[in-house]
């Protein structure tokens, strides 16, 4: 009886609530659609603009180091060097930032007392607020020259490692991938640290106590519980950082010297990344076919970043499935 009464009287009210639900649902669906549609449209825009130039290209787009787009009648552009510089600088950044970020995140979550951890974390986050032009100026004017002796030492003693062999620009001033990679590593440190910190913090207390009760030291506890638990998040955070390093423009543009010869696959190369190449030519985007060459480079960067993100999601998802 009681159920019937409550069941028949409030439909008007519940209708009102459903209208609210409907509005909210279309709002959220709409916002999500905007994102998906814009990404699709960006991809489409890049493709449409790039195809005519790619068709007019007289050399192999993927394997040629040459970039000459001045003569519309004789377009010669290839992305090999852009890809090499982009990948080398980003990987160097990742190789430096990943262990550092893990150390900082573990220190903040499992060593430092919470009272001090908060301001410390705030300082790290502040790094993300420094404009990239400032990082670029600092890298070109301060860090590059300061790193010159280090680069010279590595070049002289480790030249048998291809990555440390002679590059295509002079070592003086430090306008090479080595400097750019280190600056990039500082720029991506906050994002990797922030993501890792959050996942490391969420390690279930039950598991931490389980390890400690077995007689694990702090580090052993971290190794048996925190790291396996946070692994996927840490990797996902690192991939976000990698995405940022791949796309970083102005800092790299300021730091790297332009090279006259093609890349030697060394950290001491100069040249351009995808993003800095496009930015450097931005004032001259008047001729559609020449511009299309740069847009084609942008398309490659777009697809490349997309692939990196997809890979990160796959790795993160696999880690989660294994943990549950």
């Amino acid at each position, binding site marked *: 009886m009681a159920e019937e009464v409550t069941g028949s009287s409030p439909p008007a009210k519940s209708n009102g609530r459903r209208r609210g639900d409907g509005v909210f649902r279309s709002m959220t669906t709409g916002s999500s659609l905007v994102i998906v549609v814009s990404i699709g449209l960006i991809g489409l825009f890049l493709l449409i603009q790039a195809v005519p130039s790619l068709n007019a290209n007289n050399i192999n787009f993927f394997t040629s180091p040459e970039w000459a787009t001045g003569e519309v009648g004789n377009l010669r552009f290839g992305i090999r060097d852009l890809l090499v510089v982009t990948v080398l600088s980003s990987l160097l950044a990742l190789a430096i930032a990943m262990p550092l970020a893990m150390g900082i995140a573990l220190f903040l979550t499992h060593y430092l007392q919470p009272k001090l951890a908060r301001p410390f974390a705030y300082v790290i986050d502040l790094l993300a607020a420094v404009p990239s032009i400032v990082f670029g100026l600092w890298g070109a004017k301060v860090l590059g020259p300061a790193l010159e002796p280090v680069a010279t030492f590595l070049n002289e003693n480790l030249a048998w490692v291809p990555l440390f062999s002679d590059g295509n620009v002079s070592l003086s001033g430090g306008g090479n991938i080595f400097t750019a990679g280190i600056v990039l590593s500082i720029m991506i440190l906050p994002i990797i640290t922030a993501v890792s910190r959050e996942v490391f913090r969420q390690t279930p207390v039950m598991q931490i106590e389980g390890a400690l009760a*077995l*007689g694990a030291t702090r580090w052993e506890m971290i190794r048996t519980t925190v790291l396996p638990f946070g692994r996927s998040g840490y990797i996902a955070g690192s991939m976000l950082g990698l995405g940022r390093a791949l796309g970083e423009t102005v800092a790299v543009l300021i730091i790297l010297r332009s090279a006259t010869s093609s890349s030697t696959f060394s950290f001491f190369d100069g040249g351009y990344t995808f993003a800095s190449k496009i930015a450097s030519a931005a004032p001259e985007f008047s001729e559609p076919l020449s511009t299309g060459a740069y847009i084609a480079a942008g398309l490659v960067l777009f697809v490349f970043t997309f692939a990196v993100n997809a890979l990160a999601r796959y790795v993160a998802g696999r880690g989660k499935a294994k943990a549950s």
Partner: protein
Amino acid sequence: MAKRFDIKDLNIYYGKFHAVNSVNLAVPPRNVTAFIGPSGCGKSTVLRSLNRMHEVIPGARVEGKVLLDGEDIYASNVDPVEVRRTIGMVFQRPNPFPTMSIRDNVVAGLRLAGVKNKKHLDEVAERSLRGANLWNEVKDRLDRPGGGLSGGQQQRLCIARAIAVQPDVLLMDEPCSALDPISTLAIEDLITELKKEYTIVIVTHNMQQAARVSDQTAFFNLLGVGQPGQLIEVDDTEKIFSNPGQKATEDYISGRFG
């Protein structure tokens, strides 16, 4: 193996908060001691102070002595990590390491202690799983993750993990509170078997359980809100449940409060 505890004038604090007041208690070897009492009375806190696990919480500290076969586990030269290696603990909710296989879970404590011999580890894994009455259920899937077992199986896996290092004492903090009655019965049977070899201290909210598995029962209570928890009385389980010495104990076990 199977050592005795003598707890003398144990006071436990969390920062300025006085959590437990002056506990005196003897835990004989090869014997099950149950801690009962209402929520917040400090029984889990006392249990966690017996292997120095309460120190994990910042600000926690202890005054008094906890003697394990005469040696104070709070002496200044004692490393809490070493204490925890010799005093096993089973928690309220099963907490196997989810990324580790069943076998690796069981021998995790030995690995931490530096044992590397695979044959020896396999033997210990089998012996411990048999000891925890889990061997027959998992012997075909030792390489599968421990997280795939049922709750009761996971808790027995945690018991196997705790006894793999052959601890001096086994502490259990409400080990059945997250389990169904059948799994609870399996754990209770296991406790009765384990006490032949181990000294066991168990915290439980279930008074029937205390009556079924323990030889000695300690009743803890709060004198009032904001007051520290107290040990009201400790005696043979039979005596506590039939003819307790204190009115508060009688009220609690007959369900008049708490």
